[in-house]
Structure formats: C-alpha cells, structure tokens
C-alpha cells in the first residue's frame, strides 16, 4: 500500500523533471534549419532545370559531398573527444581502413551482386575499422592527453606504413585503382555531376548523426559525459569506465570507417592520403574549430573549414594557408569552444537583450 503510494508520489514529481531531462534530446528549430540547408543545397542543383539559377551553391556539389564525409569523420572524433574526453590523433587510421575495405569490396566484388553493394560496402568498412578500433582501444585507456595523442598517432602512422607496404592489396603509394562502385540500392548510379554521391553521403551522414544523437542523449551518453567530467567520481559510483571508453572508441572507429568507405565509394579510389597524418590532424582540427561536444561542431567545422579553404585557395592558390592560419589564431584568441561557442555567445547576447517571455525558461 504505502510503497505504491510513495511510487505514485515520486512519479508525480518525476513528470516535469523527466521531461526536463529529456528535453535535451528534443529537436530544436536550428537543427531543422541545419539539415534543411543541407537538403536545400542539394535541391538547388535542380534549379537550372526549372529555369533559374542559384549562384554559388550548385557549383559545389562535390565539395559538399566531401564536407559531409569529412563532417562524419569529425563527428566520430567528437563522440570520443567531446563526450568521453578522449583525445585522438589517429582517426585517419580508421578512416583509411574503411576506405580501403569499401574500395576492395567494390573492386573485387564487382559483378558479384551482394558484395559490390555500396551499403554493404559501408557496413564492411565500418566493421573492419571497428575491429581495429576495438583492438587498439586498450591503448588509450591509460596515460595523459599527450600519451593518447601520440599512441593514436603512432597507430595511424603504422597503418599508413602498412598501406604503403602491402602493395599487392592496396596498390601502395599509387593508391587502389579500379574501384567500380555499383549503384546505390541498385537504382542510382554514381554520376559525374555528383548528384548521387551527394544524396548518398547526406543520407548516410544523417543516419550516423541521428544514431550518435540518440546515443549521446541516452544513459550511456550521459555516462560518457560523467567520465569526461570526472573519471574518479565515475568509478566511485560504480561505473565501468574502461568498458565504456572501449565501447565508445570502437563505435567512433566504426563511424570513421563508414566515412572512409563513403569517400572511397564516391571517389572510386583509395589512396594512402586517406590514412595519412594530415587526415587525422585536419579532422581533429575541424572538431576543435567547430566546437567539441555538440555533435554539430564537427559538421560545422568541416563545412566552414573546407569552404574557407576552397574560397581562399581560389583567390590565392599558393598562399591560402596563411589566411587559414590567421583565422585559426583569431578564433582561439577571441572565442571559446570554436564556432559553436561563438554562436552560443552571440545568441546569449541576443537573449540578454530580449527579455525572456516567461521566467520558467530560465
């Protein structure tokens, strides 16, 4: 009797609190805006057929596919860095493993119906990267940020050397040639204009994003935040910290592998560049640039970074790096937590000016 009533009472109190907790997972208007823009970018390519032109965007379909893929890679880093607090400088290894796996499946699976299917290729890419991620996850459990940075970098460099050495499989420095991507779902062929590549990349990236979004708003996701916040306390409340880190690292490797697979399928080759150090460094840079710990940071970082690079290298193909460097320096000096931090600071300024409609919000 009394037990039941106590439960009732707590359940009554729990209602608003529970809603409040779950509200973090609610889709906001700016998220719809974000993905809406992505879709609009794709749709705008159809505009000329309808008799009008949209400047700037339609000419950049390939760039946008690349942004989505790099954004997905950055997203995988954000999962470990932004939520679990694990720094990694070796995500390129998983990206590359995914790329070569998908590439090899497409190359040797050509004609063999199920093997050459792009979606299956992505699954294979993710699994291959995930397995390697799991195997190396034990290396990142100990030590400081610097140790983790260097161990993950070391693994990536070794993978890069392996790719160079295993010429018979990977094609060595010249890259994996003869990757023939089959049509997506047997319907859409990869075309020269990059329509299929774009929608395919957008679909897969969104799917992975949606998955990560569920994940970080789940009890598991919050336990990762706890580990990042204070690993000692997390252990003291009985949390299996190492197991959680291994899981998220493996998952992150899986997603990076999918991203790599996407790149290999949409560009129809794989090269050692895809495993190279700069790949790992760039993607980490994009996450920090965008702002870690929001899932969107990587995507926004990738978008701004690549658009900026494209824009600057069109103006000054030889010295664009200079201006990118200046932007990075200014960003660090004047903004906290990257572009998202900048946006949040701006919106807070706006909110401060406009009094909130109801006190309950605050």
């Amino acid at each position, binding site marked *: 009797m009394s037990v039941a009533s106590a*439960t009732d*009472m*707590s*359940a*009554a*109190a*729990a*209602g608003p*609190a*529970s*809603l*409040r*907790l*779950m509200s*973090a*997972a609610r889709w906001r208007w700016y998220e719809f805006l974000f993905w809406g823009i992505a879709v609009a970018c794709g749709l705008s390519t159809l505009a000329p057929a309808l008799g009008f032109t949209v400047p700037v965007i339609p000419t950049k379909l390939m760039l946008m596919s690349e942004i989505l893929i790099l954004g997905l890679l950055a997203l995988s880093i954000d999962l470990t860095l932004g939520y679990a607090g694990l720094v990694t400088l070796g995500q390129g290894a998983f990206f590359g493993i995914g790329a070569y796996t998908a590439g090899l499946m497409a190359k040797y699976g050509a004609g063999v119906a199920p093997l050459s299917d792009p979606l299956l290729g992505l699954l294979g890419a993710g699994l291959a990267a995930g397995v390697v991620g799991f195997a190396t996850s034990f290396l990142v459990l100990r030590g400081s940020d610097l140790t983790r940075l260097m161990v993950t970098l070391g693994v990536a460099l070794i993978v890069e050397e392996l790719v160079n050495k295993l010429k018979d499989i990977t094609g060595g420095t010249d890259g994996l040639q003869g990757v023939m991507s089959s049509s997506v779902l047997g319907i859409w062929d990869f075309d020269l204009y990059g329509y299929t590549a774009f929608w395919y990349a957008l679909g897969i990236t969104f799917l992975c994003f949606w998955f990560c979004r*569920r*994940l970080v*708003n*789940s*009890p*598991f*996701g*919050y*336990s990762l*935040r*706890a580990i990042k*916040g*204070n690993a*000692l*306390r997390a*252990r*003291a*409340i*009985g*949390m*299996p*910290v190492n197991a959680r880190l291994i899981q998220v690292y493996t998952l992150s490797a899986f997603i990076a592998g999918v991203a790599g697979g996407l790149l290999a399928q949409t560009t129809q080759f794989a090269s050692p560049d895809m495993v190279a150090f700069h790949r790992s460094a760039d993607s980490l840079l994009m996450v920090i640039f965008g702002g870690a710990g929001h899932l969107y940071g990587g995507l926004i970082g990738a978008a701004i970074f690549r658009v900026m690079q494209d824009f600057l290298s069109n103006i000054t193909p030889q010295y664009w790096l200079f201006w990118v460097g200046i932007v990075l320096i200014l960003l660090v000096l004047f903004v906290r937590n990257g572009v998202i931090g900048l946006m949040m600071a701006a919106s807070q300024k706006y909110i401060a000016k406009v009094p909130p409609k109801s006190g309950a919000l605050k």
Partner: protein
Amino acid sequence: MTTVLETRVLRKAFGGITATNDVSFTLPAGARHALIGPNGAGKTTFVNLLSGVLLPTSGSIFLNGEDVTEWSVRKRSRAGLARTFQINQLFADLTPLQTIMIAINERENAARSWFRSFGARKDLVGEAVELIESLNLADVIHNRVGSLAYGKQRLLEIAIALAAKPSVLLLDEPAAGVPESERDQILNVVAALPASVSLVLIEHDMDLVFRFAKTISVLVNGALFVEGSAEEIARDPRVRQVYLGEEVINHG
C-alpha cells in the same frame, strides 16, 4: 552485531613514508563512527585504501565478509561501498539532477542502454528528485554544478554517494570549507541518514564529531592510536595530548 567493513593489518607505504601503518579496524553494521587524527595522520590515505583509489602495500580489506583487497573502485562501489571526497569530485558541466540520474542509472544497470532517452524511466527520475529534495538541493536541481555555491556542492557530493544506496558510506570531511551559515544543513543531512547505512566520518571538526559519532578511532602517524566510544575518547588524556590539545592551540 555483524561486521560490514574490516581491515586486517593494512599498510600503505609511499617510498620511505608509511602513510598507513598496520591498521586493523572493524565497522559494525549501522555504525556511526568517526575517524579523527591530526593533520597528516593518514586519514585520507586510509579512506582511499578502503574505497580502492589506492591499493595497499600489504594487509587486506573485507566488505560484508568478502575479501575486496584487490577489487577496483568500481567493484567495491557496486558491492555497496560509497564515499565522498574531501575535495569535491563532481561533474561540473552537468546539473544535480543529471548527476544523480547518472549514479542511479549505474546502480540499476540502466546506463548500458544506447537508445533509451536519458530520463525516460520515470521511477528512477522520481527517486532522484526525492533524493535531491531530501538534501535541500531542489532549488538548484537544474543549475550547472560548476556554478553552485560550495555548500551546495558538498551536499551534492553526499547525494551522489547516497544514490548508490550504499551499505557503507565513507564521508571524507563533508563540512570542510563550508561557510558557517551552511554547515547546519550538512550536519542535519548527515544526522538524518537512515540506520541501514553504516557510516564512517573522517573529520577535523570536533563539534561535528561529537554531535554525530557514537564511536571514534584516532589515527596518529598512520597507525590506530586509540579506539572507543565518543565519551571515552573525549575523556582520554592521551588523545587530548596528541590531538585535542593541538587543536585547542591551533584554534586559540
């Protein structure tokens, strides 16, 4: 009376310094026990050994009759041993409600879920809200922990430990650094803890110790100096000499 926590000739040495010197200690169920000693007596080291943050050089630890000497912090925690830290160990970027929910999820094995929404289990949220209310944290339940007043943070520190529904709770100087005005809140919370929880209080503050503890152990230079009821200890001249006397002088 059953023993819930026991150490046998527990020793911890850091290089040449012996921080815990062959301590044999038993804690009966339902105890209200205080562990006191002058600065540098090795109180915190002892708690770290009990909770598994440090591993002992020699000796053994038993929790509810089981040898837990080699167990990790996490395993001990799951076996019912909770603790607070002398220096707050909180999740600065989360809210008290989120913090407590994380702890409860962990206890209920609900934290493995990748897909259920955090906070979807109303029964657990209800429990969290109750616990937070009982610790006078209701007004800051959705505030960022890092922005809370120090006294509130200390309360949350206790709340996290309680969320695990422990059988043994180690409180490491729960009121340390809390302004006078907020101390009472903490004392009341500690006094109101259910009898099912066996308590070990590590304290410096003698007011708190005598108000709360039924039994007391005095630790000096890492070794158990004397044990007894609160009255016995208060009267013990040796204790006065090594510890209370010093306290009086310091405070004077």
